[in-house]
């Protein structure tokens, strides 16, 4: 039920986002039309003014009210015919319709005296502001983004948490305590100095050098050795050991085994994400195969956090 609510909500959001610019466009055109029609009406009226029998105090003219009203009626039928939304309502106090409409007042500055005219504007019917197109487009967008809507609607629920952990699981390696911690289960497993240094160096090396194949039959790349030495020095600094630096190339297989054993323990409860951190074992081709690569192929920087670096 929640799912449908969210879909309806997103549909309404899309509809709103698309409807508003459409209505805005209609509104702008309507306003521009009003200005244009007012200007055309004024022009016509100004040209016809000498022909109208309007009241004139200075010349004792009472004016021919009927003929002026007749003129306005003709004017309005002309405007209706042309599709204008405006209607002339008053010329110099002579009105043909009720005053309570939406009236715009303009003054024609004639040489003898200013002539005040009023034009009644009818509002655009509300349905003109709507269209089927935003509705259809909103439906299309809901369809296109259905996957995102589903994800969005599950945010905060258990399913999504695991999905997110899958994307960004974090293995915390604490150099101060010499432990590996699973941030999900908070399980911490101690590790000896040599495998710890080597593993930290390996993760760092693998995040930056994806293309280099690490093979047990070859020498360690100098960068990797250097990194491992650096972390060993760091362990000495932290006071964990006073022994001299080990040779990381020696008994590499043993070191890897120790690392694997520790990782097995760390990810006991979440075996599915272990593969990111697990240096692959040689399968089938034998451990001496030249093709074997014990590097961490899919590790990313965000997958790992090192404390006490």
């Amino acid at each position, binding site marked *: 039920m929640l799912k449908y609510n969210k879909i309806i909500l997103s549909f309404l959001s*899309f509809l709103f986002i698309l409807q508003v610019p*459409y209505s805005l466009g*209609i509104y702008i055109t309507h306003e521009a039309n009003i200005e244009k029609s007012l200007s055309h*009406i004024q022009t016509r009226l100004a040209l016809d003014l000498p022909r109208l029998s309007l009241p004139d105090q200075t010349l004792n003219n009472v004016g021919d009210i009927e003929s002026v009203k007749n003129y306005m009626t*003709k004017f309005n039928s002309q405007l209706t015919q042309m599709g204008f939304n405006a209607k002339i309502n008053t010329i110099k106090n002579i009105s043909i319709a009720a005053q309570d409409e939406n009236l715009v007042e303009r003054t024609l500055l004639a040489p003898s005296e200013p002539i005040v005219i009023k034009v009644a504007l009818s509002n655009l019917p509300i349905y003109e502001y709507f*269209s089927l197109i935003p509705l259809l487009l909103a439906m299309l*967008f809901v369809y*296109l983004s259905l996957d995102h809507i589903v994800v969005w609607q599950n945010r905060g629920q258990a399913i999504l948490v695991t999905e997110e952990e899958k994307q960004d699981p974090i293995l915390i390696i604490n150099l101060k305590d010499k432990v590996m911690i699973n941030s999900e289960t908070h399980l911490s497993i101690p590790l000896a100095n040599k495998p710890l240094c080597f593993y930290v160096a390996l993760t760092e090396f693998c995040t930056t050098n994806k293309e280099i194949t690490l093979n047990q039959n070859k020498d360690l790349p100098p960068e990797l050795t250097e990194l491992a030495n650096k972390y060993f020095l760091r362990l000495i600094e932290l006071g964990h050991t006073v022994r001299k630096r080990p040779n990381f190339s020696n008994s590499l297989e043993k070191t890897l085994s120790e690392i694997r054993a520790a990782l097995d323990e760390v990810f006991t409860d979440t075996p599915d994400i272990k593969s990111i951190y697990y240096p692959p074992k040689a399968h089938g081709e034998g451990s001496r195969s030249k093709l074997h690569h014990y590097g961490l192929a899919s590790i990313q920087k965000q997958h790992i956090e090192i404390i006490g670096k």
Partner: protein
Amino acid sequence: MLSYQAFFGKRVIVTFLCTAIIIMFYTGITRLDVMDKPVPVFLEISEKCKTNGKAIENNLIIYVPSEIIAKQVSNKLCKDPVVAKQYGNVLVNWGYKLGDSVEFLGKGVADLILAKENIMQAFMAESTYNYQAVLGYSSYTAFFISLKEKPKLNKLYFLDKKIGLLDYPTSRSGHILPKALFKDLAINIDNLDIIYANSHEGLRELLASGKVDLIASYWKNGDEKQFSKNYIQPISKKISGSKWYLKMDVENTDLLCAVQKNLFDLAKEQDSTYFNHVKLFKACVNNITKKVL
């Protein structure tokens, strides 16, 4: 599956959405018709009709102050065979302003014009352009008409009265003659309470509604329904009615007789007593023998 994700990724959807927003805005802007057409001329002040004749360059120009009569006259004359022989078009003007008659008559533009005798005399158009009366409406008398008593023609009577007059100065019964009378009675017009109206009908409404005490106008059939014939006071002797004048540059008697005949026919079709009582000038033999009033 990869292509599906690439196609419906968040960025792609947002890009689409932005494009869609712009498209929607554009659609909204172009959706309504743009009202950018000038309002065409719809006020008619003249009408042109074609005769059956071949003289398409020649226009018979008519000026009549009333639109209804103007159209009737042009319809009649367009069908006339004599007019068709001499003119390709009949152009009738009715205008909207008093000044128009001055232009058409004073400059001799109109071939045929309906005008008052006093205007014709003012411009000396009879001698300048040889306008000749063809047909005239019956003469009438100007009256002061009151609602409750017979108006008296003395100075004291007018001083405390509200008087309804016409606002156009060419009217004899509604403007010239009453003002001339006030002058004769040595009344300063500024001291009188004068209310102006635009037409004789407007004057009658003013009187009937009690906004004025008396009006200056003529008496016509039907007035007895609103007013009493006992409460009218003549201002003057008979005033000659409006006349149709034809410009006689040459001795075009055929045209004169044709115009006279058509105007006479038209007069007989009118309901108004003023317009259907006519007097013929410049006797055309045929018309006189056939039709007697």
